[in-house]
């Protein structure tokens, strides 16, 4: 299947996925007892006020009418008005998403840069001290509670040593970086301010390290097991017999084959992080999607919950598409299948 038809097929599937996701989320969020209108007007509001707000937001309409309206809005890229923030949901998502994506991409990049070589090293030196250490780290990475790790890192690097900043995306007293893309690293470069770029990068170190800690372990473990399997295959023996250098054998032949399942794992991890890493965002005061969603759920802010779900579902479909494209690039055989 060509990449073009793969993209087309996935886009068609996206429509089905979004229909299913919106329907389920809509039903689930409306079945939960609780009145968003009352949450909005405060505890002491009279019944008349609450009823008026219900009318204003269309919450007094039958469920199927509300759902129909929502879908009609969705087709115009209108995700409705948030009951909590009283802003268009799309504006809220555009505000918070870049912060989450910037952090997610940095932490994934860090995890890939460390996790994959660690996995390769561990596989090549199987059952040596290096391998044992790497495996121990993998288990530690997966089992360390993020809130504890985040707090410890904050305490040591910000509290005790004072070498890294403690919260936010940039120092509040730095010159303001005009918002263009919402990605501070990009916006500061667009503005030509290396100092702001550095400051934003500084602020990324602790949260992205914290987030990548788990993924380094996951990626390393995945690469290790795939590599061990690949290294035992016939073509590797043949390549070795043909005198291919050890470096070329590991990185050009074995790793390339071992990367296919790893790419799936990386894709899933990016998908997970898109929803916002709530713990990390909370500890490092990172203004991302995580806390927006948690606050919206607590407030029964249906439009915000639905908007977020649609957003993340779309993100997942796109990531899966990218993962499939990555397969075809890594393994030419896949291009012909379909």
């Amino acid at each position, binding site marked *: 299947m060509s990449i073009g038809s793969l993209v087309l097929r996935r886009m068609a599937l996206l429509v089905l996925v979004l229909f299913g996701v919106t329907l389920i989320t809509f039903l689930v969020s409306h079945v939960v007892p609780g009145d968003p209108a009352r949450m909005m007007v405060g505890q002491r509001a009279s019944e008349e006020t609450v009823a008026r707000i219900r009318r204003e937001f269309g919450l007094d309409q039958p469920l199927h009418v509300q759902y129909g309206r929502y879908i009609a809005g969705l087709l115009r890229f209108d995700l409705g008005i948030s009951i909590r923030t*009283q802003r268009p949901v799309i504006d809220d998502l555009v505000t918070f998403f870049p912060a989450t994506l910037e952090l997610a991409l940095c932490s994934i990049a860090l995890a890939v840069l460390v996790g994959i070589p660690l996995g390769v090293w561990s596989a090549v030196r199987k059952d040596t001290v290096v391998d044992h250490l790497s495996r121990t780290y993998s288990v530690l990475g997966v089992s360390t509670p993020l809130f504890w790790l985040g707090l410890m890192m904050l305490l040591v690097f910000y*509290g005790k040593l004072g070498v890294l900043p*403690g919260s936010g995306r*940039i120092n509040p007293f730095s010159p303001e970086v005009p918002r263009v893309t919402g990605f501070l690293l990009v916006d500061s470069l667009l503005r030509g301010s290396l100092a702001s*770029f550095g400051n934003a990068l500084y602020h990324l170190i602790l949260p992205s390290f914290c987030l990548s800690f788990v993924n380094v372990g996951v990626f390393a473990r995945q690469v290790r097991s795939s590599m061990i399997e690949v290294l035992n295959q016939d073509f590797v023996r043949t390549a070795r017999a043909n005198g291919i250098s050890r470096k070329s054998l590991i990185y050009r032949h074995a790793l390339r084959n071992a990367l296919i399942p790893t790419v799936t794992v990386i894709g899933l991890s990016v998908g997970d992080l898109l929803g916002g890493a709530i713990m990390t965002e909370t500890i490092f005061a990172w203004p991302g999607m995580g806390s927006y969603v948690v606050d919206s759920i607590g407030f029964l802010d249906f439009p915000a919950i639905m908007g977020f779900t649609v957003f993340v579902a779309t993100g997942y479909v796109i990531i899966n598409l990218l993962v499939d494209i990555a397969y075809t690039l890594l393994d030419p055989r896949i291009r012909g299948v379909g």
Partner: protein
Amino acid sequence: MQAKRRGIVFQIVLGLIVLALLLPGCGPKVPKDTLVVGIADDIDVLDPAVTSTNSSWAVSYWCYERLVDYKGATTEVGPALAKSWTVSPDGLVWEFTLRENSKFDDAKPVNAEAVKYTFDRLMAIGKGPAEAYPTLETVEVVEPYKIKFTLNAPFPPFLYALANNGASIVNPAVQSKEKDGDLGQGWLSEHTAGSGPYKLEQWVKDSQHKLVLNPNYAGTAPSIKTVLIKIVKDPSARRLQLEKGDIDVAAELPLDMYRQLEKNSNIVVKSWPSLSVTYTYMNCQKAPLDNVKFRQALSYAADYAGIISGVFLGNATQMRGPVPQGMWGYASDVKQYTYNLEKARQLLAESGVATPLTLKYLYADRDPNWEPVGLALQAKFKELGITVELEKLAYATMRENLDKGEFQLAAGNWTPDFADPYMFMNYWFEPQNWGLAGNRSWYENEQVTDLVREAARISDQAQRTTLYRQAQDLIMEDAPYIFLVQKNYNLAWRKNVEGFVFNPMLLDMYNFHQMAKK
């Protein structure tokens, strides 16, 4: 060759990153004329006619002025925008004369037109803040700087309610920002348009609010030129930033952290009695809680001292009646239940309610104290043969159940909006307020209803005190709530910060304009 070129590119990128990291360090420190306040959560909206949350008021309160304001640390109101006022003998017509030197941040004058616009807008929007003026009929401009409010029934707390955030005088220029007939709600939810000492310059969502001086402010120029309200959700991180000097004031820390911060010589930790209470609703419409003797038995079985020391770490006092100490109408000799298991057993026997039985205690994670309070009640009620099952729900769902009366016992907090016992006596005990509106124990006693309604009709404070006192005596016998504790308000700040005045009516609304940094 290609690999070599790639290597060079990699080295250049790496070099740039290292250089960028070396350039700024952690960035500039907090300037002396800037006050940084660390809070736990971002706010919803800033429009005074819409928001009902203290956290929003913390940002907007000093961006506006009101006709009257709470004075210093007291619960008394005095002149602010209004320099004087009169009230008709029947309490229905209030006339205010305004100061003539006050200006909005766009230099337009704050006059009677602006006051009329504010209240017409507030009532037309009709959200939570408008509920503080239930009998407001009309607002008329008498003269350019004289305004008349007419009520359709006397409402004695009216003057106090004018010090609420909802009564902040809004610049009529916001009308030009109206969209789809929203009276400028969309615009004002993210901006300020007042005549207070500050104005909002920047709001980075979920990150920070930056207040700067209003150049047209008529009062004394504040020493603090910029206020940065930073959202730092994790309390440990907030505490750490306070200790490191990256924030000057840390709000909403857990009680044990305040204790630990007391040991730091660079930090000042203070605690004041507030008017906020934590109490337990007993649903008077549901058996066996519809039995007065049974409710009295539960009131005697609660270990008040244990809850104060164990849950609130001593930062609270036991309530004596519904009106908290510090609010007029508080009676120091009204009946107070104390932990007395013998008495509880005797009342339980008299009630005729058979034990063992199970009661459900409804709560949410909105307040971390609600669960330990439930556990404390559970431990003591067990002695009476009553099993308390803790039922934790999402806050929105809990509110729904409270509003519908679908609970037995439930955790609750209450903070008054204005300094009048009406906030407790009428909201809590009038049957028209059954549910979330205020009467959360679904209580009804005709005598009490008559007394508190009469107290809400007359303006003489001495007479009202007497009526409220009579009602309190009846209420304490009926025991519709377990009157637990009146909480302390705690705050920690850097030693070099001066001038903070705690006013129990202005929780979380720090008087930035009177504060300074050494």
